[in-house]
């Protein structure tokens, strides 16, 4: 099932709503968010997905990571974690 998420990409000017399958991995979600913000933001290098203040492991599915419908998810450059 696809779930709607509020997403915020570091460096972007607005929040977006994406629909993502619960079975999608966090890495795939990061790609999806990066594409969604591409008209305004482009990064070189790694990006991390932040959920409830925690950086999520890329191999987890959204379900495994405990991401629920309408949760806030942030995409930040790998170098800015911490």
């Amino acid at each position: 099932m696809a779930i709607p998420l509020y997403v915020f990409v570091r460096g972007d000017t607005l929040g977006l709503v994406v629909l993502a399958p619960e079975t999608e991995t966090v890495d795939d979600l990061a790609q999806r968010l990066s594409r969604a913000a591409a008209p305004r933001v482009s990064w070189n290098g790694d990006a991390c997905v932040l959920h409830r203040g925690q950086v999520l492991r890329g191999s987890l599915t959204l379900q495994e990571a405990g991401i629920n419908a309408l949760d806030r998810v942030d995409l930040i450059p790998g170098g800015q974690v911490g």
Partner: protein
Amino acid sequence: MPLRDEWCDLARKLDWSFSYADERQVFPEALSGTPWLSAQQWRDWDEPFRSTFAEYVSTQQKKEVAFQAVAEAVGRVEDMSQLDPGWLSVVKLHMATLPLAEFAAVIGNLRAARFGRDSAWRMTSLLGALDELRHTQLPLRAMHDLVRWDEQFEWTHRLFHSNDWVAVAGRHLVDELLLGSDAIEFAIGTHFVFETGFTNLQFIGLTSMAKQVGDRLFEQMLQSIQTDEARHAQIGHPVLKKLVAHDRERAQRLVDKWFWRSFRFFAVVTGFAMDYLTPLSARRASFKEFVEEWVVDQFQSSLDELGLERPRYWQAFLDALPMYHHMLYASAYTYRATTWFDFVLPGPAEQAWLAEKYPETWPQLAPVWHNITERWRAAGPGVEWYSHGTTPVAFCNLCQLVLCGGTPSENSAVFVERAGRRHVFCSEPCRELFEAEPERYASHQGVVERILQGQAPANLLELLRYFGLTEANFGRDVTSGEYDFLRKPERG
């Protein structure tokens, strides 16, 4: 005392005692406002214009003649088509939002003309209602003949009836401010905060820009409207003064709320115009400078005079002033097809001007414009989609505007769980205002809620149709990417 003044006071202050109905029944608190005070307590209410109906009609007739003359002389397609295309977007934006707000203001003024607690107040509100009806009609009249030339001008009329996100946000504001408020809240929110505090940005700031770009029609219309606003805005001060005397806390709360909500609205309609859509050669000052002059200084002195504090969200407003409308404009630029007016891509000269006007915030915004510019450069002229978003946008559950609070490195969106529903707000003030009166707002269906419930489509192209937009009228870049600066590689 001259005969005119003697007669005027007799006619304006014409109250009477009720014999078969209670005063509270004639002026119920739900409509007349809180706190409910007796007629005796309102008896000293007055405003400085003290216009008679005959004087009003005579003055308005002269204004109408002047406006019609200008419209006929310089408001034709051949005149308007000479104007800068960015400026035409200012016109389209304002001409569409004016009827939406002004028509609702007719209703608000009529309510005050019946339920205002003093006869002079009611008389001035009646004239205010006639003013607002005129302000609804002026843009409809002025833009009518232009529709055959450019279909976007049809949105002067169409926005009011559409589901476009700007209309959803605009209606959320004006429904509460102008249609749903009692006479006291209306007087304070509309006349004191919205009109006295903010509309000078439009009617004085934009008028000077219209003059600079050579748009005499817009200049004349704004001047004509401004003189009406200056008169009926005077209702706010004496109502607020009375409220301060009897319920200071409520007075402060209403000022706090409407100050924040008005700022959010004007950041769109005036912020876009002053800092992006108006050609550089015609800009007199930045949006921030205008706000500092007309709102920060003048509004603050009005509050001081009444013994009120600065609005509760003053610091949030000062923090947002150099950033919020920039965040919103960059976002809207990359979703330009969701509006009925076109957008300007700020080039090197415009960005240098913005960097000078906003030294503290522009360095955070410049990378966004660099990215958009590079995408135009890569795609070439005419390829709008490459610098356009396709993912649905998130909106604030209070102001209904895009979640553009904070900065690019830290969006200020806040989430709240209430009655099994998750609400999102662009900022702390919007969250706080919502939570202070949840029964007023909780059932509203914003764009995202409509999408999630299947009432509106999630696919952008389908959503444009839901908004009422078609390929013939949706917003684009004003040049479709045909800028000189895009032809040359960027240095550095």
